[in-house]
């Protein structure tokens, strides 16, 4: 069982979180333009590496935030944890939150 250092709640047991899969490709835009191939890749394809990978984890037993977790699947080491919104917006917008 891994420990995830939540940026809002501190280090917590994995049982407080829900795994949300790999944070691989960016979701295709809902602009009527994206094709099935792009959506297929987004929904069905993942890297599943033995080593570092970025994943989404939902802290349902804590702050209710989705987190972007960089984790080594071979060593279970947590390399980086960021709030998903911060990660998506980039560091400049942190102030707003």
């Amino acid at each position, binding site marked *: 069982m891994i420990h995830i250092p939540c940026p809002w709640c501190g280090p917590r047991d994995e049982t407080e979180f829900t795994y949300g899969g790999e944070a691989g490709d960016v979701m295709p835009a*809902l602009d009527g333009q994206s*094709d*099935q191939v792009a959506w297929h890749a*987004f*929904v069905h394809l993942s890297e599943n590496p033995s080593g570092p990978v970025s994943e989404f984890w*939902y802290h349902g037993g804590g702050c209710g935030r*989705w987190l972007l977790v960089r984790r080594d699947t071979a060593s279970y080491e947590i390399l980086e944890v960021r709030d998903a919104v911060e990660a998506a917006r980039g560091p400049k917008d942190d102030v707003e939150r």
Partner: protein
Amino acid sequence: MSASPQSHRLPSGGLIDRTQSLSFTFDGETYEGYEGDTLASALLANGVDLVGRSFKYHRPRGLLSAGSEEPNGLVRLGEGNRARPNLRATEIPLFDGLVARSQNAWPKLSFDLGALAGLAARYLKAGFYYKTFLWPAGAWPFYEKLIRRAAGLGQPPCGPDPAQHEHHHQTCELLVIGAGRAGLVAALEAAEQGRRLILCDERAELGGSLAWTRDPVDGLEPIAWWDQAVEKLEQNPKVTLLANTTAFSCQNLPLVLLEERRPGGNHRLWIVRADAVVLAGGAIERPLVFPGNDRPGIMLASAVRFYIRHYGVKPGQRAVIVTNNDSAYEALEDLKSADIQVAGLIDMRPAEAAPFRPDGVPVFANYEIAGTRGRKRLKGLTLRYGVDGSRVDLDCDLLLMSGGWTPNLQLYAQAGGRLMMEPQIGAHLPHDATTPLAVVGAAAGKGVSPTAAMPLAKGPMAFMDFQNDVTTDDLDLAMAEGYGDIEHLKRYTTTGMGTDQGKTSNINALSFVAARQGRSAEAVGHTTFRPPFTPVSLGAVAGPARGRDLAPTRRTPFHKANEKAGAVFVTAGDWLYPRHYPHNGEDMAAAIAREVRNTRRQVGVVDMSSLGKIDVQGPDAPTFLERVYCNNLANLAIGRVRYGLMLRADGILFDDGTVARLGETHFLLTTTTARAGEVWQHLERLHQCHWPDLDIRLTSVTDAWAALAIAGPRARDLLTALGPDFPVDKESFPMASVREGLLDGLPIRLYRVSFSGELGYEIHTPAGYAEDLWEAVDVAGAPLGLMPYGLEALDVMRLEKGHISVGTEIDGRTTPADLGLGKLVSRKKDFLGRSLFQRPYLQGKGRLQLVGLQPVDGQTVLPIGAMITAHTWQGTTQVSLGYLTASLYSPSLEHPIALALLKDGHDRLGDEVWAVSPLANQSVRAAVVSPHFFDPGGERLNG
């Protein structure tokens, strides 16, 4: 057993408390032991040689060891539902009133019919269950039952476990596993540095081999040093000492799992996060492999020393020692102190290897054991001289054997540490300098006696693995049949399997295989070490999370009102929900039928509080909802509510519910009860992970609002009688309206929606007003014939209307088109799931589509879960055309109806098919009809 009370207890010595006499029973016989005994030592003290029968051949077995590696002494402890099978007698602290039974024997241990299997030994070789009993074809299931009954390792209790198990989460700066000398030293050092630490040991007493070794520590006698060390640690408030506690998993460091076995069979699972872990697991002595090496009375040399020194037990009268290393020579002094005669010391090595020449003991250098005698207890040995093969006979009732020492590195290997074969000791040592955990003491090979590599004896019944009855012949046979890899050998012969996982057998087996294959032991490798180190009770793993405590019980704000109304509750997900409200003497079917009829004819009220409710606010709320629902919402006006369908990104239907617009930028969503949590998570994910720029706020308000629905022809009369502060007539408050206001003075949100297909309203009120609202509805409804209805009646009415439900029709495979809702899917906008919903696979022919079914005879309820086929079922294979999702008798239509997912069903209306259930042995002819059975035009709804 004819032994007199504690006949084999030494007159003095040992660490037991001889003033505290304890009574216990083993296989129904009553014995006495002392405080500080284990069940094993107490049995030995009473001269009980025979503790079990072996797994396959049912050979009589005695105790081999004194520790957790014990392969033979497995017992069932306790009675009734408290009983626990397969516990090691060597690890069970004796207590007054202990009840234990042997396993694998019938009718009794001393006369076991299963021992006949021993006569059939030549048919029970490695892999026998893969080869024999295969004739005649199809008979295996019959043989399997017999074999499983005969085999089996213990029997679990049948009823619920009355013990109280618990989980305990703990952090520490250092966890020391093993409280022998090395572990105590590590703990003392860390304690002096002021570190917060846990020291655990699987045994009831800390100290490990300090109890029976003689080397002084820091100039003190081992036991004196031990007392001092334990006292120091006990007085340190930063130190937690855990006896009877096994660290069984280091797989996910820094998380370590410990099982603490507490009095009364109550277990505590420690979930420990340690900044650092020190493994001081010591080493296990290996048996020697020779023909007949499994008779009661043949024990590990260290175990004999342990029983003499720690427990004051005399395990035999006349002993022989056999060894391939120096460590067993130290037993001579212990045997002498216990007044046990030594008939000989067999050193398998050449004469010059002996560390010293013992006084008055015949030494047989360069000898090996050719065979043993004695049925239920060892009576003697035959030795064979290594030079000329000449033989010598020795009489003895106790054989101490030492085949070298195996450092306990299972937990190190679990943590990902690599092992390296060290030929000097004939066992593995830690390979890496940078290890996931620090290994100290004998576990790291410190002080472990160098061992001569010995050709392993060949002959019948030379046991490699005692617990699984695997002999050298079995390994040879498996290798001859092509199972050369050590992992294959383990699985084919079962060596290293079972509750001991080969603690005493793995190294011997791989050395034997290496010798036979002419390879190095390093090249042979080793099997993978996985948790648990020793078996863990499932109760400890489950902890308090069982039965009703497995998940929280959710009660709606109307729970007390429902109780008062006479509801029978049912567990639905986490919810405790009213199932029906029986009147005097009514059975469930009658109550459901009455509730349905009353709702359809007058008016009913139902608790809807468990619906998921999500409040969405913000300037971008319309954009957000347009993206997450597949139907059009752009033109939803303020004060209106609309049915909404949500797809997953892959185009499959995820959930249905309502979207109500309370203001320009304020929406309230409802979700199904079943998916409330998932939908909430899904929406939060979309917002946070993918569309963070949308300016919205989502709030889950499921628990904040109580909700009830009133439905039936008189629903508006009831509503009017309740005195709303706004007009609710047909024109002012038409179908699909929503507004906030007061009802009988209570703040409410009123929806005109219907799940039952009747004129209906949902009334939401803040949870705190729930009971007032119920009371008001109850009073106002009484003159109108109001009756509450439960989950079952609700389900009947939704089925009569052909409304879909999560889990039956929304099953993770169907799309809106499959369920006849294709026209709701917007073609004007993009939304989550649109792209993949258009996949040819989801759009083409051959989809399972929602239809209604009616029995052709008009009266047989179609079997629940039935398959749909073209022909009646005749016991032969048929192509499935689909299956039933719901089936019941409709009180409104007065005939049975069903919903089904039928291949290309939308094109098959009017066809006849068969609903077949081989399980119920039932085939019913059914007509394919529209799923909208009742009031298909919706006149009642819009009334």
